[in-house]
């Protein structure tokens, strides 16, 4: 690491989070919304590991481990919900899920 500072990693983490947020906002496919959520969590992970490395503190890295665990559980439950929803509504697009809106 010659001239790469933690700020470089933080800016990258923010950009990853922003790209994921963009995906959550503009995509209509729930599968892609879930993938974009994963991307947002990855941005957070990069920031946490960068802070952990810069601060010489292992707590941040261990927190990343727990975030990965929770993300895996979240994805499995989310995809199961999605399959159940698809069996009921025959669609996985967000604009078809407007039962409350009407």
């Amino acid at each position, binding site marked *: *690491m*010659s*001239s*790469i*500072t*933690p*700020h470089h*990693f*933080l*800016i*990258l983490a923010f950009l*990853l989070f*922003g*790209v*994921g*947020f*963009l*995906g959550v*906002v*503009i995509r*209509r*496919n729930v*599968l*892609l919304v879930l*993938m*974009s959520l994963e*991307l947002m969590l*990855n941005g957070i*992970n*990069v920031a946490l*590991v960068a*802070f*952990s*490395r810069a*601060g*010489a*503190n*292992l707590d941040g*890295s*261990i927190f990343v*481990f727990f975030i*990965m*665990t*929770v*993300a*895996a*559980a979240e*994805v*499995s*439950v989310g*995809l*199961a919900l999605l*399959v*159940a929803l*698809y*069996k*009921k509504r025959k669609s*996985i697009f*967000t*604009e078809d899920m407007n039962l409350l809106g009407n």
Partner: protein
Amino acid sequence: MSGPDLLFYFFATLSLGGGLLMVFSRHPVSAALFMIVSLVGVASLFVLLDAFFLAILQVLVYAGAVMVLFLFIIMLLDVGPGGAKASRLKFLSGLAGLISVGLLVVLLLDLSLGAMEPSDCSADGCSDCSETSAFAWPEIREETAANGNSLVFSPSVKAFGFGLLAKYMLPLQVAGFLLLAAMVGVIILSRKSTGEEGG
């Protein structure tokens, strides 16, 4: 610009480009494949940050298990490229995006005000100054030292496992229980939708 710098920029471009292509790709399968590229890029960044165990975990858990699950569901539901067009940006989503991007810019400016150049860690007598010349954040390190934290960053899996099993024993148990709960929940969800409604 030396080797690690080039590696950082290469993998940063890989992860960001993969993410952008994932968001804007038409077909869900190609989106999942771009997502794998992005995740591998993030894993390589973890390697650059000396977090080797997390990098392996990232490849195994995310690129291995989670994305395979995604691909499996995509093929199970037979999702085509239809509906890949972005939804109409309504006023509220536009406002939300604007506000969050503004907050992000403010945060970035606050963080990087005159801090982008490598800091010469001459004030604190950190022993590893020579090996991580630029990658030290003296303020955080002083705070860590002041709090008397015993968990020092180390690239070895041994230190990671020690921290996990000593200081973070209860969160580890809770995470295991969370995985069990997720497993039971998935089984119940998938059984109910086929059993009671008759397909």
